C-alpha cells in the first residue's frame, strides 16, 4: 500500500478526469490487467463489464490507490492516484459487516473525517453537510437507523451520500446493482444522474449488459486486456462479447439473442 500522507492538490482543469496508459497489474503472481489504456472525460458514466475475475476490482483498487500497478501510468485529474481524497470507492456489499454498530448518518460522516482533521470532532456544520447529503439521496428520514437494518438499495444510497460528504469528483461503484430490485436500481440511477449532471465522473462495475447499454455514456469491456472501449452501441457487439466472455456466450440461432452463462451473479443473462 502506498504511504498515505495527503496534501490537497489542485486539479489540472485541462486534464481528463481519468487517464490510464498501458496499465499492467500483477496479482498473486498472475497478470490481472495487461496493457490497459483509456481516457475518460469528466462528468461521464462508464460501465466496466467483463466476466468474473476479468480484473474489474483490480482496476478499481489501482484507481483508488490501494494497489500498485506493475507497469503503466494512471492519472486522475492529472495526478497519480493516492494523493488526493477526490475519489470515493463505494464498496461491494460483501465488504461491509452488516452488524456494524453505526447509523446511516455516522457512515456518511465517515466521508468527512479527513476534512474535519485529526484530533477534532464533527461540528454542527459537518452534521449539516451529512443531513444535506442524506437528503439528496432521499434518506433523510433514515439518518438514525443502523446501517445493517437498511435494504441493499438504501445502503448503496448511504454510500453515495458518504461520497457526497467527501466531495468526491470520481466515484467507483463495485457491483452496486447486484441483488437490487428494479425500483431500487432506478432510484440509484436517479441519484447517479444528478451527480453526473453536477460534473461527477462515475465508474460502475456491473454484470448487467442491458443497463450498460441503456444508462451509460461509455462501456469498457474487460478481460484482463481491454477488449473494447467506447459508446455502448459500438462496444456491446456480438464479436466483442464473444471475445470477452469466450465460451460463456451462447448465440441462439434465431434472431440476435446472446446468452451469457457467467456463473456468479444475478443479472448475468442479457441479450444484445
Amino acid at each position, binding site marked *: 500500500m502506498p504511504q498515505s500522507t495527503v496534501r490537497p492538490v489542485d486539479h489540472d482543469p485541462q486534464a481528463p478526469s481519468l487517464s490510464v496508459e498501458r496499465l499492467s497489474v500483477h496479482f498473486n503472481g498472475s497478470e490481472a490487467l495487461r496493457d490497459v489504456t483509456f481516457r475518460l472525460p469528466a462528468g461521464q458514466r462508464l460501465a466496466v463489464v467483463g466476466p468474473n475475475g476479468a480484473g474489474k476490482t483490480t482496476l478499481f483498487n489501482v484507481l483508488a490507490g490501494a494497489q500498485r500497478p506493475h507497469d503503466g501510468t494512471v492519472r486522475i485529474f492529472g495526478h497519480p492516484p493516492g494523493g488526493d481524497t477526490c475519489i470515493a470507492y463505494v464498496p461491494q456489499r460483501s465488504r461491509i459487516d452488516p452488524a456494524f454498530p453505526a447509523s446511516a448518518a455516522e457512515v456518511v460522516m465517515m466521508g468527512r473525517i*479527513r476534512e474535519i482533521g485529526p484530533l477534532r470532532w*464533527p461540528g454542527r456544520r459537518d452534521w449539516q453537510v451529512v443531513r444535506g447529503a442524506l437528503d439528496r439521496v432521499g434518506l433523510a428520514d433514515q439518518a438514525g437507523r443502523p446501517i445493517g437494518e437498511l435494504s441493499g438499495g438504501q445502503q448503496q444510497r448511504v454510500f453515495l451520500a458518504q461520497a457526497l460528504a467527501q466531495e468526491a469528483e470520481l466515484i467507483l461503484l463495485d457491483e452496486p446493482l447486484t441483488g437490487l430490485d428494479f425500483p431500487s436500481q432506478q432510484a440509484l440511477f436517479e441519484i447517479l444522474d444528478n451527480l453526473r449532471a453536477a460534473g461527477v465522473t462515475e465508474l460502475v462495475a456491473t454484470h448487467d449488459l442491458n443497463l450498460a447499454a441503456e444508462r451509460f455514456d461509455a462501456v469498457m469491456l474487460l478481460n484482463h486486456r481491454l477488449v473494447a472501449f467506447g459508446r455502448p452501441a459500438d462496444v456491446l457487439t456480438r464479436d466483442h462479447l464473444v471475445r470477452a466472455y469466450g465460451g460463456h456466450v451462447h448465440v441462439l440461432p434465431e434472431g440476435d439473442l446472446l446468452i451469457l452463462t457467467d456463473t456468479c451473479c444475478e443479472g448475468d443473462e442479457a441479450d444484445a
Partner: protein
Amino acid sequence: MNAWLAWLAEPFTYPFMLRGLAAALTVGVVCPVLGAYVVLRGMAFFGDALAHIILPGVVAAFLLGWPLVSGALIVGVLAALAVGAISRRSTIKEDTAIGVVFAGCFALGIALLSSRRGYAVDLSHILFGNLLGVSPSDVLLIAGLGLLALLTVVAFYKEFLVLSFDPLLALTLRLPVHRLQNLMLILLAVVIVASIQAVGVALVLAMLITPAAAASLLTRRLPMMMLVGAGIGALSAVVGLYLSYYTNLASGPAIVLTATAAFAVAFVVRRIRRRVA
C-alpha cells in the same frame, strides 16, 4: 439490612482487597473500550497471541526485579510492531505467522521462568493473575496506562471507527492507515500489560472481547457498545471479586467467569428481543 451492608463491606476492609478492586475496575472499564475495536475488526486471535507474546518481557522484568509492567510494555510494543511487519512482508498467511511468533515467544517466556525455584507459583501468577498481590505503585501504573489508553481512543475515535468499518475507505480518505494500525496494536499491548496482574496472560483475551461482545449484542452504536461494554467489565470486576472472596475462587478466573455469565445473559436477552420484535 445492616448485615447485608456488612457483608458487602467486609472484603474491602483489607487494603490489599481495595487495591485489587481498583486494579480490577480499571481493567474492567478500559479493556472493553479497546475490545470493541478488537471485536469489530475480528482481531480476537491476534489479541490472544499478543498477550502470550509479551510473556518473555514479563518474565525478564520479573527476574530483573523491575515492575512487571515496564519490561512487558517494551516487549509488547516491539512484538506488536514486529507482528505487523511480518504479516505485511511475508507470503505466509497472517494467522500462521502470528501463531509461529506467539508459540515461540510463549515458550521462551516459560523457559526463562523455569530456571527459577518456585517456578510453578510464579507461572500461575503470570498466567492467571495475582490481583491480591497488587502493590500501591502497581495500582498507580495500571491506572496511568488505562487512562492513557482511554484518552488515545477518544483522540482517534473517528479514525479507528473508519479503519474498523472499511480499511479501503480509510485508504481513499488518505488516512495514515499503517500508522493507525500500529497505534492500535501498541494500545492493545499497553492494555494487555495493564491487565496482566488482574487476570493474567491466559485470560486477558476474555476481558478484551467478552464484555465487548456482550455489549455488541445489546447495542447498535459504537459509543454505546463501548459504554455498555465498560459497564459489564466493571460489574464483572466487582462481582468477580466478591465471588472470589466468599468462595475462595482465584480472583482472575472469578472475574472472567462473571463476564462470561454476562455474555450468556446478553445472548439470551438478544434472542428474546428478536423473537418479540
